[in-house]
């Protein structure tokens, strides 16, 4: 899931106001093969890519009511690759006319001192998990099919055990704010995956 974002616009001082257009769903382990088969046909002609990431979620508590959340991802299968630090804003589900969940996002590639650095900034680790799965692309769209593993020994990915008997499916595009046509693209792609997997706007706030 956390390969470097497909859409990056090198603007001096970073790319401001990037939005992630997101649809989520899940599929049982039994359905995985047929979903992968269909994705291979639908997506860009590239070598099927697998990934295994260890994600730690950090919180910074201040005077404000809600803490500041940052996600730090480290690839387990590519030693030496940079860490991925991610900020995600509040998700907006919008009304029925909007086809995807939209949230502000900042993707940063960093060196491996990231955990110590976040600690130094005052962040505290809240929870962690391991995500292993497959990654596909279609144009700017990223399709991640992965299983979430529970971390048993804090800080290490060894011996992590699967959380469920299903895979999470995520369709996402990162684009500058205001490009709502992107949402339509994501929706129409999701239609092609029915009835294997039902992709929807899932607002995490409602699940809490």
């Amino acid at each position, binding site marked *: 899931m956390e390969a470097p974002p497909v859409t990056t616009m*090198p*603007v*001096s*001082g*970073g*790319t*401001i106001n990037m939005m992630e257009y997101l649809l989520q769903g899940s599929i049982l382990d039994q359905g995985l093969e047929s979903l992968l088969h269909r994705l291979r046909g639908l997506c860009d002609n590239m070598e099927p890519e697998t990934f295994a990431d260890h994600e730690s979620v950090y919180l*910074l*508590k*201040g*005077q*404000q009511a809600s803490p*500041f959340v940052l996600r730090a991802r480290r690839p387990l299968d590519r030693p030496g690759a940079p860490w991925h*630090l991610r*900020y995600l804003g509040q998700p907006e589900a919008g009304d029925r006319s909007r086809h995807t969940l939209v949230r502000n996002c*900042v*993707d*940063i*590639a*960093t*060196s491996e*001192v*990231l955990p*110590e*650095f976040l600690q*130094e*900034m*005052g962040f505290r680790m809240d929870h962690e998990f391991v995500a292993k799965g497959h990654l596909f692309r279609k144009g700017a769209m990223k399709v991640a099919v992965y299983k979430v593993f529970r971390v048993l020994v804090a800080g290490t990915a060894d011996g992590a055990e699967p959380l469920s008997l299903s895979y999470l499916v995520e369709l996402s595009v990162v684009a500058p704010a205001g490009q709502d046509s992107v949402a339509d693209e994501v929706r129409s792609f999701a239609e092609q995956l029915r009835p294997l997997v039902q992709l929807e706007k899932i607002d995490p706030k409602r699940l809490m």
Partner: protein
Amino acid sequence: MGVTCVTQVPLAEGKSVQQTVEILTRKLEQLGAEKQGTFYVDCETYHTAGTNVGTTAQSGKLLYIMHCSEHPLSTFALFENGPCLVADQNLDVLMIKLKGFFQNAKANKMETRGTRYQFCDFLIKIGTVTMGQSGRGISVEVDYCPCAVPGDCWNLMVEFMQSFMGNHAPTVPPVFNSKHDALYSPADTMMQYMELLNKIRKHQQGTVTGMRL
């Protein structure tokens, strides 16, 4: 990039910043160094905003965000004695998001700009340090490119620096001691610049009067 030493050169007696830079560059050119464009290093200071509940240890600590022309697509974030994070430029965007927690002390923004010289395997950068609008001092950076172990080439670098800085050649930077046999990295250079700029700023804030540029 190899091993780098960053130091400050005091003003020559009765000379301005500009004149002292000219004296230095003339010496370099006499050695045979060739001009190779310009360079910059900038440094912004961030304060922790207000008092953080439960993180009292962090309060009062300063966070520095730096950029440099040698690594134009990177942003460096560092604490005074803590780790240095090397990231891409989206870190600057994150700092905007974090403004409720870390506040940019805009008045404290410092930078050094100047000319880049090459002599054999050495890169030399002589810059004018500015804070606000006025010149505050002179920075000299010497990079010995072929070597990556600071302890190995320090004597050689001192000899080179003496050849154009005379007795203003520096003593061993603290970064060198902490990683005597380890490999040198660009973050170590940023650390040295941060310390140098801090020193100049503190000195400035002590003496109220500015210098002539």
